[in-house]
């Protein structure tokens, strides 16, 4: 028993045919082939599935896709410059900082962390280490021990503020 919904994802209107019980995470991954959003626990703790809803981080495993209708959804696929042939390596400054600072290992939790940090830096352009750690507390990473993630977020903030990356 599927129904058609229209979602605004990464600035485009997308049509999905889903069961009403489908989570936003499953809808993005299965119906819209946006597999950059990862599912880690399906109970709202690990943060791997974080996407932005009207700019604010939400757990896409705890939200039904139908609840996202009428809102703007941003996934990790919407963070990078859209034209791969464009400047640089096709990474946003935040993504680039994660590569520069070794802020990821397996990369599974990374999309959720990128979106959380993306919204955070918009609201806190010059964060302290403690503020960065508090922001990250809702996203579990099992590989990095977080230290290089903190450094990456800090480097992105500094770069945005016009400083040389540390």
């Amino acid at each position: 028993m599927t129904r058609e919904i229209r979602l605004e994802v990464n600035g485009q209107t997308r049509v999905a045919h889903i069961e009403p019980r489908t989570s936003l995470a499953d809808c993005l991954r299965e119906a819209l082939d946006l597999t950059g959003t990862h599912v880690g626990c399906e109970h709202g703790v690990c943060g791997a599935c974080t996407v932005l809803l009207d700019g604010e981080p939400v757990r896409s495993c705890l939200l039904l896709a139908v609840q996202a209708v009428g809102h703007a959804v941003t996934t990790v696929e919407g963070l990078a410059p859209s034209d791969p042939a464009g400047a640089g390596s096709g990474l946003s400054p935040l993504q680039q900082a994660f590569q520069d600072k070794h802020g990821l290992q397996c990369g599974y939790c990374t999309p959720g962390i990128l979106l959380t940090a993306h919204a955070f830096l918009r609201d806190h352009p010059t964060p302290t280490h403690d503020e960065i750690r508090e922001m990250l507390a809702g996203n579990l990473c099992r590989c990095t021990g977080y230290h290089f993630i903190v450094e990456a977020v800090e480097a992105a903030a500094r770069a945005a503020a016009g400083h040389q990356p540390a």
Partner: protein
Amino acid sequence: MGAKLFGASVKRREDPRLLRGEGRFVDDIKLPGMLHAAFVRSPHAHALLRGIRAEAAAARPGVARVFTFAELARWMKPLPLFGAIPPGLAARVDVTMRQVAQLAMARDRVRHVGEIVAMVVADSRALAEDAAELVEVDYEPLPAVVDMIAGGAPGAPLIHPEWGDNVALRFKTGFGDAAAALSAADVRVQERFYVQRYVGMPMETRGVVAQWDPRDGSLTTWNGTQVVHFVQQGLVTALGLPANKIRVIAPDVGGGFGTKATGYPEDLLIPAAAIACRRPVKWTEDRREHMMAAAHARHQVHDIEIGATREGKMLVVRDRICVDLGAYNSWGIVLPYNTVAHLLGPHRVPALDVECRAVVTNKTPNAPYRGAGRPETVYAMDRIVDCLARELRMDPAELRRRNYLAEADMPYEIDIPYRDGNRLVYDSGDFRANLDAALEATGYDRLRAEQAAARSERGILRGIGISGYVEGTAIGPYEGATVRMDASGHAVVATGACSQGQGHETSFAQVAADALGIPLDWVTVVGGDTAAIPFGVGTFASRSAVNAGSSILDAAVKVREKLTAAAAALLEAAPADIEIEDGQAFVRGAPASSVSLERVVRSALPTFAKPGAVTADFEATVYHHQPTVTYTSAVHIAHVEVDPGTGAVRLLRYVVAHDCGRLINPMIVEGQIHGGVAQGVGGGLLEEMVYDEQGQLLTGTFMDYLVPTAMELPPIETVHLEYPSPRNPLGIKGIGEGGAISPPAAIANAVEDALSPFGVRVTRAPLGPDAVRALLVAAEEKKARDAGAGGGRA
């Protein structure tokens, strides 16, 4: 051959795709006509299976098939067993071991919560899960064995009745005259230490996709595994197909830590379903399944005693070890013997007496997890060393300095065999230098002064804890590599080692690019695909850099020789005069002669006019033999603050001074240490798989099983010491696991140090607030009793 890339913190080449959300994990794979599996798992820890009724489930719309043991009987061969006793070990240690192979689906008895009893395959995962709820299973519950000590005693309920008891493995070993040393010791300290059950918990759960191709009778399966060739071998046995008809691919894998290095029922069940249904089938584990059905780890009890002189010279260690294996003994000798082989670690101890037994219980089967016996044994040893220091009224750093081995002692033999049957000989390192470097980085003396001042002036409880380990890494016997040039003069490196985030595409390319004389970007590394190389072992046991790296180096050197011969023919020069750099070949001293490797490779191809200048063979395969391990070592120092009111432990600083030989990529090494420490901190403070007395798992979500967040971890300070290993051509040692080994011990020592005014003794991990409060309450009660008793006498 110039080492331009080896040793450089090259940025990781795998990062851009992962950062853009373009990684390809198992659950990202979507095939036409694909079905989805869900499992019916036992809700009982121990029960007999009396019957299964699947008709209602099978009749649900969208359900393709429901499989019980009976439908799959022809494929239900025993799952692979690991950890056989090698001859060299059997010759010196009398091991009694029993292993019974698990079947992929329970036949007549379930032995832990989460064991599979049926599989539903349907058009979607949701439909499969709905139908799985309708499968009716008749269980006859049996008494469960939960506690390992009681479970190993006579009269306990039997998990594998044919054994007659629950002891799967038993051995004793040692050297020197331990009894005499103990009676001669000025000081003896003994204690029982308990290390809890905790696990790898990768952020990506397990997953399997399988596709059967009836045209040529071949199976392709994508599996988030660390060991593609082991999975392939298991399928060869169960399906009766030759290896070349089974392709196992581990695509991007979201963390492994050992959890994904064991053999699992689902590795076989999903391919079996794909063959039976003639359609692709996918299964993605959910987190609840992961907690109950993916391998558990750790879980030991040590009754340990140490004897020493009054000056603190260690004379003897005696340990009685019990290992909880969970429901099956799939890993044989591995965990128990690792525990014993790493007990003494960096210390010089002239006598050792160990007895070890491993017990099956009605819990999820255990498998090696990052450290694999070492965190447990280091916990016992470093705790008893701190207890000895207290008894001697000696600073714990000084006691260690008096007993740690130094570079002049290398090579140093501990007179028991290693797990691989070879002599246990430390090849390199300076454990006292590790200690001194860690103390210096910590500012130990200053910190001790601050600690005293904080305690006396402000009533703040801070503690410092030290732990050191020596780790046999990179167990052999081999990992292979094929290096081959393509028609563009670029290289492909194929190896059986698989990456789960360790950055193989970068560090292996650094080794290959240096050896071939080509830019890093010209190297493509292929791991985790049985079609790329026929034989392999896999990534676990801190083994890939040493085993695969050595093979890559040797194979690349051979390919470079072939390129040199071809360039010599092309340039009409002697091979000895040919240089290759940055993808160009030229005659030494004549840079104008430079030609691209693309031209060199193409010059070997026949044309209509003439045959190739040389044979067009620019490929080499090497299976580097690594007979035994190489020894990584480290000293960790934890600085903590304990709130006696809440029992909360806050890590203020964490320092690691370590030696893993030469560093291929220091940035990646540092990341491995950080991640290992983070997991060790989890084991020290937070993480525990908890069962109740009926064997019900109480930790089924991330709200119950707590892994560290960014708030629990301080920055991790690292000092690199480099004592190259003489046991491989790169001089490297494994570093994947090491970070996870010492934190539980270092934190326990630090907490006990912080609470020294209360006279508590920490004997159990983890040290959550409840555990710390319980220690303080017990200490207060004891103080009150003692005061009462003392008052009575006065």
